[in-house]
Structures are given as C-alpha cells and as structure tokens.
C-alpha cells in the first residue's frame, strides 16, 4: 500500500512539473494561438542557468531565484521577436509557419546551451530546501517535492488572478478570442504577443528554477520537457489553465503507476497509449469544449 501512496505522491510532484511546463505553453497559446515548441528548452535554460548561477558563480539562492526567471523571460521575449511576431502578422497564408519557426528557435537554444555547457559533467544542482519531508504513514512527501507542488499552485493562482483582474490579462483573453476586434478596441497585438511570451518565459523560468534541484544539469533535456508538457496539455485540454492542472497531475500519477505496476521500461509506451486513448475518446482533451467552426 505504501508503494501506491509513494507513487501517488511522486505522481503529484512530477505532475506538477508537467503542469508547470503546460501552464507555460498555455499562457502563450491562450493569447497568440502559438504552440511554442521551444517551451521545454526554455525550462531547460531555467535549469541550466540555475546551475550556472548556483554551482558555477556560487550565487545565493535568492539571487538565482530572481535572476533565473528574469533571464528566461528575456530569452522568450527574444524568441517572440525573432521567430514568432512575423507569423502573427501574416494572414493564414502559411498557417503553421510559426511551428517550424519555433522548432528552429528550440534548435538554436539547445545548440547554444550545448556549446556553452555541453562538455561539463552532468551534476546535481543545490536546493534551497533540506532533504527530508513530511511522513505520511510509511511514505515521505519530500520538502523539495512539496516546493514544486506549492510553486505550481502559486503560479496557477497568480495566473488566474492576472487573467481575471489586470487590464493586460483581459486584453490577452480578448486577443485570443478575436485578434482583429481586440486591436480595434485599442489593444496592440504586438504588445500582447510580447507580453504573452514574457509570461510564458517567466513561467518556464520559475519552473526551471524550482525543478532544477530535482534533476541534473543536462542540456539535452529540453525536447523531453517539450513533449511531456504537450502530453499534459493534450490530455487535460488545450487553452485552459485547468486543462494543464488536470492533465499534468493525471499524467504524473499515471506515469508513476506505470512504473510501479508495469515496470519502468514501459513508462514512455504507457504515456503514448494514454495520449492515443485520449485522442480517440475525447480528442479535444478532458477539459475543453469543442468550438464551432466558422466558414
């Protein structure tokens, strides 16, 4: 039984990581309808710059906690300028140009990080929190895991507040609904897409910093995160924060249960089956209503 509980706890922690990546996707997608293929690489940049700040520069934790999200936000804003903005201006001609373009940017990020850090041995990244945690029966909910879950919850609450309360949040939702109508009401679409990428970058940066102590300084991990975040969103439902929460947690817990009952060899295969199952039964994800097509 405690193995099962362990799996659930581990699932919630890992699910929060997937959820954090998913929320980053969603905050960009909601405002721009761009699925940012470099999102996982942004998280990876967060992890690697945490490593750089903490392990190489020996900065204090609070310094890294501020600098890492700021840096990743900057990278995301650069991405918006270099790889995305052009495609938002164009009308439908090459509908998925941004897909190829953000794929290209993810290659740029990965290669740049690889060139900078590729030769160093993969090492652990220090955490602000001690080892250990709360005991639940025989299971342990680690402080570091709890930190990820707590950050995920905080990010969600802040994002919901941002979308509901601030002018920019409302403007983003309006732009997502109808780009033209929003710009006629004085919302500058360029400001919106830049802000959306900044938000996505910020989320990825916070996520990267929080995840870093749980993983290693591996510059090739970006693509895996990109795919895992996508899985979480595809399962939960695209375009909603709730979809990212449900999808992330569901994916995390299922992965742990796959590992427990089927063996770790089947974990990736299990995820694929889960994804195909969702796509077959409920293609739009668990938390998304189908939008009527307009002709």
């Amino acid at each position: 039984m405690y193995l099962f509980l362990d799996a659930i706890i581990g699932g919630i922690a890992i699910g929060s990581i997937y959820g954090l990546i998913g929320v980053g996707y969603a905050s960009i997608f909601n405002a721009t309808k761009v699925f940012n293929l470099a999102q996982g690489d942004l998280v990876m940049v967060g992890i690697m710059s945490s490593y750089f700040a903490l392990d190489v520069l020996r900065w204090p934790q609070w310094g890294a906690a501020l600098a890492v999200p700021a840096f990743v936000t900057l990278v995301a804003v650069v991405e918006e300028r270099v790889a995305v903005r052009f495609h938002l201006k164009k009308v439908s001609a090459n509908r998925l140009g941004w897909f190829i373009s953000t794929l290209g940017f993810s290659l740029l990020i990965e290669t740049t990080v690889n060139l900078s850090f590729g030769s160093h041995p993969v090492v652990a990244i220090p955490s602000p929190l001690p080892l250990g945690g709360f005991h639940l029966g025989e299971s342990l909910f680690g402080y570091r895991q709890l930190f990820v879950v707590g950050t995920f919850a905080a990010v969600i609450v802040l994002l919901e507040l941002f979308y509901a309360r601030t002018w920019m949040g409302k403007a983003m939702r309006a732009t997502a609904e109808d780009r033209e109508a929003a710009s006629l009401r004085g919302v500058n679409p360029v400001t919106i897409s830049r802000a959306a990428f900044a938000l996505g970058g910020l989320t990825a940066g916070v996520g990267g910093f929080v995840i870093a102590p749980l993983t290693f300084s591996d510059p090739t991990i970006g693509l895996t995160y990109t795919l895992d975040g996508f899985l979480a969103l595809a399962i939960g439902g695209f375009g909603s924060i709730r979809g990212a929460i449900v999808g992330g947690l569901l994916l995390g817990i299922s992965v742990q249960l796959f590992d427990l009952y089927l063996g770790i060899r089947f974990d990736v295969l299990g995820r694929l089956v889960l994804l195909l199952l969702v796509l077959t039964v409920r293609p739009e994800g668990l938390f998304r209503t189908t939008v009527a097509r307009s002709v």
Partner: protein
Amino acid sequence: MRFRGGLLEKAGVVGVLVIGVLLPNLVGHSAATLGKLDALLALAILAVAMNIVLGFAGQLFLGPTALFAAGGYLAAYLAIHYEFTQSLVAMCVISVSASLVLALIIALPALRIGGFYLGMTTLYLALVITTVASRFNAFGAEHGLSLYASLTFEQRPTGVALYELGVGILALVALYSWLIRSSRLGRRLSAVRASDVLAQSVGIAPYRTKLAAFLLAAVPSGIAGAFYVYSEMFIVPNSVSPNQSIDVVAGLVIGGSGTILGPIIGVAGLSGADQFFGGFEKYQGLVYGGLLIVVAAVLPSGAIGTLKEQTDRFFARTELAGTGLREPGSSRPPTGIIGGLRRFFARSAEPGLPAPADTVADDLPDNLAGERTVAMPGGIIPPRSDFPPLVVHDAHRAFGGVKAVAGLDLTIEPGKVHALVGPNGSGKTTALNLICGYFGVDSGEICIGEDRLDNLSPDRIARMGIARTFQTPRLLASASPLENVVLGADRHAKGTLWGAVLHSRRSWVADRESTARALSLLRWIGVDNRALASAEVMSHGTQRLVEIARAISLEPKYLLLDEPAAGLSIAEVEVLSRVVRAVANAGLGVLLIEHNLPVVFGLADQVTVLHQGRVIAAGSPAEVSVHPDVIDVYLGHNRLDGELPVPAPTDSSS
C-alpha cells in the same frame, strides 16, 4: 522554347541522381565512406517519402524516424533470428509492413485533430520508438542490433554496387512521389493542404485523404529503414532519435517541402555537410535552427520551391497576358510507369495538365470579361431535371444563447433560383452551412427526396450533389484557376485512384477530359486568358467567378452561392447573372444569398426573407418586395411608405 520551374526541378532531380551515381568516384570507395553515403541515401529516401505527407498533404509529421526505425528494427531483429529474412527484398517487405502498421496506429487517432497535435504526437512517437528499443534487451538495448553477429548474413550486392542500388531506389522513390503529385490524388492532397473546408466543398473527405497520404509515405519510409539496416548492418537507438527526426524535417523544409528535389538536396546537403566536414556537427543546430526560422518567415516553399516559383515568374513575364492552352494532342497517351517516365521528361507546365501553347492565343483585357461570355457551350452543364427538390423543414440551430436559425422552412426547386435575403446576422450563411453540413442542425430536417442530409459530413453532402461557394472565395492560392476548376471536375473522373497514380491510359484520358471541361467553364466566365496564372494575384471578382466555375464543375444538382455579387465589378455582376440564369435553365436548383437586391430580384424565382433566424416573408419577388414586414426590416418603422430599391421583376428566361 519555354522554360519553367517544373523543368528546372526535373533537371535538378536528374542532375542530383547523376552526381549521386558518381559520388563514390569523387569522395572515395573506402568502406567507411560508403557506409556514410549509404546512411545519407537512406535519409534522403526517408525525406522524399515524408514529403508526401508534409509537403503534398501539408500535414505536420515530425517523427519520420519513427516509421524508419520501426521498420529497420523489425527487419534487423528478424534477419538475426531467421535466415530466410536476410535478403534486401525480404527486409523491405518486413520493414514496409511494420512502417504501415505503425503509421496506421498513430494516424488514426492523431489525424482527428491534426495541426500541431499531429506534429507533437508523431515527434513523441519517435521518442517512444527510440526509448522502447533502448530499454528492451531483445532489441539490443543501448547497443542496438547488429547483423555482424549473424553468421549467415551476407550483403549481396556489397560496396559500391550496393550504394548504386541505393541511388536507384532513391530515383524510384522520387519518381513515385512525382507520380503521386502529378495525379488526381496529388490534386486532392493539395486541396487538403489548403484547408479541410475547401477540400470538403469539392467532395473530398479530408480524413481519409490524409490517411492515404500517411500510408503512401509509410511505404518508402519502410524501404528506407530496410536499406539502412541492410547497408549499415546495424541499427542503434541514437541513429533514429527524435533529434534525427527533427533534422530530417529541417532538411526537408529548408530544401523545399512539396518539391521533389528539395527534400533530397536539403537532407543530403545538410546531413552530408555534417558528416563529411568534421567539427561541423557541434554547430549543426545553429545552422538548422537559423535556416528554419528564415525559411519559415520568408521562403515558405523552401530553397528549391522558391527557385521554382521565381523561375516561373521570370520566364512567364512575357506571356502572362494571354496564356493560351494547347488542345491536348491526339498522339497515343503515355501510360504506365514508362509513360510516367516519358511524362516526367515532357515539358508540361503543370503536372497532369496539357502543356501550354507557345503562342499567345488571345489577349483580352480583364475589364472586358463580360463580353467574353457568349452563350453557354453545350455540355458544360448537362441538362437534368430528374431529381426532387431540396427541402429544409423547421431547421433550428443555436450558438450558445444566440438562435442563429430558428425554424427555417425552405424549398429549393430544380431549375429555379431561390434567393435568401435578410439583414446582416439574420442567419443566411448559417442556413447555408446547415444545408452543406458545416454545422449540424439542433432539430429539423434537410432532405432531397427521401435522402436526409442533416448531420452528414460536408464532403458527403457535396458528393450528393450540393455545391457551394464561400463568402470569401476559397481557392488553392498558389495554383492556377485551371487547377482549381480541375479539382472540381475531377469529381467525375473515371478510373481508380491507383490507376491515376500509375498514370494509366484511362486516367490520362480522364485528366484530359477534366482539363477540357475546366477550360470551357473558364472560357465561359471569361477567365480562360488567365487560366494558368496564379489565382492569388487575381482580383476578388475573378476569384469569385473561378470558385463558382469550380462549384459548377462538380456537376451538382444544387448550387448554393453565398453573397456571390459582393465586391464584383458591374461587368462581373453581369457575368454572374448570366451564369446563375444558365445554371437554373439547365435544370439545377440555385440558392442565392445576396445583399444586392436588384440582382436578387432580377434573378430570383422565389425569395425567402430571414430576420433574426426566422422567415418573415416568402414568395415571388413581386410579393416579397411589397411585404410590410420586409420593408419594415429593411427600412425601419418610420418609413412605412418607403419602397425597396427593386426593379420590376424581369422575365426570368432572359
């Protein structure tokens, strides 16, 4: 002699293959070099295969190595364990089967959403295959599978001969993809690439067509996997990783998706540079990434595609004014593989279409389009009257709280023009979308005789004989008006799709008939002098007329026009009116949604007026134009003495 991009591309393919054949003489015969060249060939074959999905059908497929790896791994596994599977042919059969099965498993669910979902799912598939292979000892785990361990495995042929065989396979796969692109199936794929809605409006089922593209691409992908394993004699997880997939897609897109030459040049060029110039691979991601961003932004058709377009643009400059089309020659049609080869080397401008004449046929200025429209030549619209009316009964459709259509009754009689008018937002377009199946009805019935139409798919309804146009014309933007109309005329082409891909005699004749029909339709609406120009550079009015011609070319029972006169010049409105009248005279039923009331009242036999989703008046133009509710809706309460700006209804046979 006329020079066009298509010819340039063919010359390029032949040139690259010749270079491919000679390559061992240039870079050396050592086993290590040949091993690299063989691997490069396998990737090039894979890229040409993937181009069928990515380029022709426009579906994001990011996991090419998944199919490649599944086939390769299975072939290697069986070859190690069973001696009789050790020949190249046997390995190809095994690999192709595995690749087909995997393509089916992944495409069936993932195609339901398509778009980037498909891209991400297939990229994930590439990760899954690699990870699974690296975790199971049966597949050699991290070390992969090696045929060197097999005592009985022996390459036949070996060395340079094997490499040249690979070049031959690449040539065949290139021909295969060219045969697909230049066939009726290829035109279907390009319709799906443009948009599902467009494809459905000409009766093409998008899902099935995309699935076909996947399976067609899976075959050569499997062959590529088999050739890789056979020539390298090993397969390791790293060589088929998702990153390798991304590299193949990058090479394909940079080289030019949708072209035959682009994928070969892109993948062989970029991966070749990577393999043969040491130290480059560290920076490979920067080059790929940078090029991808640039290509996605400014060269959507890639290096070769852009070169092709520019060549066309440059050499067409002198004859853009009047691109006359030569009547298809009477010589024996080139058929089968050999015929396909002959046509491959022929200098036809557009795949599957007759070559344009070198001379300028006629040179009419655009604004005389109206005068070009003489009496309808016989046979364009076969007269028919043997079908029941299209009846909409008590149809309802709400979007959230908005009742867009609330209780619509409508009967479109064969041979009559039925106009549907009403203020903006009164539910006219929704009504049309309900009939065509783009929206489902909440309640009510739509039928032709006994056949219920409601809640069938739009492409099914189009195939049942209901053709439509859109408020904003939906054309294949980069294609010519001729190709756009041929897309519709193809609906009634004889012969199977397989026959079309193999360029059978029958399909050649069918293509010729479709082309001839499309041309006479274009001549009828006065666009034949621009039949081969690019549709996207044409005026809005011309695009509308071309779209109507495409709808008519489907030989429908009913023609549904959504605001066809909007944005048309006076001359074009004249053409439109004649076309609509002729269509009705030929026995077809027409539903005309239009704001231009003089046009409506001049053409319509029946008028139904919608207001806020309800029918407020129906009857002859004369009755409706004096109906108080109609005047009220159009002119407001304070103008009860007003009159609608309507001419007296004219004789409908004019």
